[in-house]
């Protein structure tokens, strides 16, 4: 037997070319040794390099151990930085432990039968920057929801600005009555001054005529021409006196006209104030979008970011590679299988929600490098406990021609802290802390998105309108939402994934719109009523004062004019008495007595009082 073995070796030695075989055998041994001892550093380098290339940010890991015999891969302290936020990690885990099927490696496949990722956390802080030195910076593309929210904000704030503008409008300055009364008050002194000046002018003129006449009388024959002139001047003074008296006697009818003008102005003011109460309407949905759009926008942007990150790593259905140039491959199994497959990985980690610690556990199953070759879609299930009890199920199905992703979030009980909806400097709704529930059911089919996100919160709502700066309206507004003890919001998503259309239904928008509108209307109506009454009172008082002044002035002016008339009559008498008809040809001055009305009787008392 031993001899046969030696003979076989001797025969083999004759058959093999040892000078060729020995070096190659040594190379194979060296390769095995390199794999045995160099696999860990090589894998470490590969994970870091490919991870950094894919992410565009630093990927760090503590320790990596492989056991090809036991089929185990352990990675500890892995941290992948967030390329958008270099001081935060996209993902961090204390330990990755995977059990892979060694036999499958010899079949060109990597199959992880079981595994666990512990100490998993997302968006955790970093002490050093995770930015790569020469990493290209991604230009943050505008969020698809930004225009929707911006339009809603513009419309809601325009509506509110209109209301606030009406409230802050200088109504008094816009009313006609005060303006007219002021105008009358300004006009009367001027009229009075003019009449007074005329009366005084007449007296002055009369005295001049009298003085001139007395001088001329000393030598009447020589001064006949002058006397004739004086007579004419006296006639002119008398005519002016009559005009002035007529003007003064017309003052009561002017007062009547003024009162009519004030009445017309009051009617005009009432119409103007009625116009002020006509508000523009705001669509409650726009108001919902304004109040809740920003919050929804934040959540959806965050969701879109994570979907985008997930899509980077989850392979899409690959385009079938071109057929092999030489022949075709025939399968000897039920179906072709993916080259890499994670059958099941348990997850546990922690996060913070609203400042509270949140622990979560979960399971990732059926993650395949060629999802179309696997019979089940990728499924991720996470259950949180602590800060909130939540269940998240995500199914990413890339088996067909169109990828189908489905995410369902169910948070039956959630404590939310106080927050402000809307623009805090203009129009906002503050929501008090309260218990809430959140359900989301979102599907992404190819390039289209659909789904519903519902939030129900038991909280007190209060409207805040810092722009109005009026305690009374603030009180009314506060009362308008005081009866609302829950916040209900339903976000309907539809349309294209890159530009989804968002419809927000909520009880806050209609309540707030009605409350604000009603409060402002009531406020304005009260204010206008008060303003109108005040203006009318003031007008009446001013008119009464004016009438009194007129009466006084009329009395005074008529007294003055009476004196003037007396003087003129005396001068006329003098002129008639002193000039006999000897001069011939000279006109006789005929001075009928000026009828100066009895002062005081001229004032129509019934028209000076209301």
């Amino acid at each position, binding site marked *: 037997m031993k001899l046969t073995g030696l003979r076989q070796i001797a025969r083999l030695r004759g058959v093999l070319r040892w000078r060729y075989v020995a070096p190659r055998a040594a190379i194979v041994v060296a390769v095995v040794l390199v794999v045995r001892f160099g696999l860990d550093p090589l894998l470490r380098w590969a994970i870091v390099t490919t991870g950094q290339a894919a992410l565009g940010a630093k990927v760090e890991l503590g320790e990596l151990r492989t056991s090809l015999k036991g089929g185990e891969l352990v990675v500890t302290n892995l941290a992948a930085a967030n390329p958008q936020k270099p001081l935060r990690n996209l993902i961090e885990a204390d330990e990755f432990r995977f059990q892979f099927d060694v036999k499958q490696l010899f*079949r060109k496949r990597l199959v992880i039968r079981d595994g666990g990722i512990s100490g998993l956390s997302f968006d955790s802080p970093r002490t050093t920057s995770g930015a790569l030195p020469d990493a290209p910076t991604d230009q943050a593309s505008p969020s698809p929801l930004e225009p929707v929210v911006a339009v809603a904000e513009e419309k809601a704030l325009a509506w509110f600005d209109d209301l606030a503008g009406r409230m802050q409008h200088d109504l008094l300055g816009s009313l006609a009555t005060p303006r007219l009364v002021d105008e009358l008050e300004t006009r009367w002194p001027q009229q009075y001054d003019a009449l007074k000046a005329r009366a005084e002018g007449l007296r002055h003129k009369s005295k001049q005529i009298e003085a001139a006449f007395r001088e001329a009388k000393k030598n009447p024959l020589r001064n006949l021409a002058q006397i004739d002139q004086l007579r004419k001047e006296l006639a002119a003074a008398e005519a002016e006196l009559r005009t002035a008296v007529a003007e003064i006697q017309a003052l009561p009818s002017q007062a009547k006209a003024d009162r009519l003008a004030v009445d017309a102005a009051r009617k005009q003011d009432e119409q103007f104030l009625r116009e002020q109460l006509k508000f523009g309407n705001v669509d409650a949905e726009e108001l919902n979008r304004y109040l809740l759009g920003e919050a929804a926008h934040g959540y959806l942007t965050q969701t879109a970011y994570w979907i985008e990150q997930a899509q980077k790593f989850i392979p899409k259905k690959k385009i079938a590679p071109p057929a092999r140039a030489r022949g075709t491959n025939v399968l000897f199994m039920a179906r072709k299988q993916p080259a890499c497959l994670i059958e099941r990985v348990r997850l546990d980690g922690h996060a913070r929600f609203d400042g509270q610690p949140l622990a979560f556990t979960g399971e990732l199953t059926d993650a395949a490098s060629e999802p179309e070759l696997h019979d089940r879609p990728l499924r991720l299930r996470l259950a949180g406990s602590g800060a909130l009890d939540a269940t998240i199920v995500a199914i990413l199905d890339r088996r067909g021609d169109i990828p189908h992703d489905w995410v369902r979030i169910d948070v039956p009980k959630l404590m939310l802290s106080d927050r402000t909806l809307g623009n805090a400097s203009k129009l906002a709704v503050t929501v008090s802390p309260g218990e809430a529930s959140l359900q989301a059911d979102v599907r992404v089919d190819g390039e289209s998105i659909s789904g519903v996100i519902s939030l129900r919160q038991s909280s007190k709502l209060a409207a805040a309108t810092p722009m109005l700066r009026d305690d009374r309206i603030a009180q009314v507004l506060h009362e308008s939402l005081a009866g609302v003890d829950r916040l209900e919001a339903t976000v309907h998503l539809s349309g294209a994934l890159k530009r989804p259309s968002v419809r927000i239904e909520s009880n806050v928008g209609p309540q707030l719109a009605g409350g604000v509108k009603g409060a402002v209307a009531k406020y304005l109506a009260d204010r206008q009523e008060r303003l109108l009454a005040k203006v009318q009172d003031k007008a009446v008082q001013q008119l009464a004062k004016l009438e009194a002044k007129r009466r006084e002035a009329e009395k005074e002016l008529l007294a003055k004019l009476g004196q003037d008339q007396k003087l003129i009559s005396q001068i006329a008498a003098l002129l008639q008495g002193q000039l006999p008809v000897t001069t011939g040809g000279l006109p006789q001055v005929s001075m009928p007595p000026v009828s100066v009305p009895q002062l005081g009787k001229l004032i129509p008392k019934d028209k000076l009082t209301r």
Partner: protein
Amino acid sequence: MLNFLLRPLRFLAQSLIGNDSPRQTAWAVALGMLAGLLPKGSLLALLLATSLFALQVNRAAGLLAMGLFSFAGAALDGFAHRLGSMMLTWPSAQPAFAWIYDQPLGPFWGLTNTVVVGQLLVGLYLFYPVYRLSLAAAAYLQPRLRDRLMKYRVIRWLKGAEVGAQWGLES
């Protein structure tokens, strides 16, 4: 550099007038034919090429055969594909192919490819005839060619260079 340039000529001379026996030359041609016909890139082709170098056969003759049959193999691809398809889809053979595929390194053998299987069948079919023909040709031609070619100085020089290369004098 000179050695690099002369290597093809030395191979040719070695294949014709080397000290290898006709059997070694015949085995080399048969193995080279088989390796040449197969599409490269499979473990089977690698194993055959390694055998050619690892076994005590006429390497030069084997490499020449491999080169020649590589061209011939490309021309036979259509036929090999049809033959391989027939073989791979033959129900009786499928369990065996499936078993091979399911073994460790099974997918690396390339025995799921129609052309690989077809060329392998062609090669196996031709193996013995090629061996016999090569053996006869080598037995007949090698002594005559050696005598005739060794008369030329250049051949003697190339032969010497080969001996020197074998003894490590080339560097």
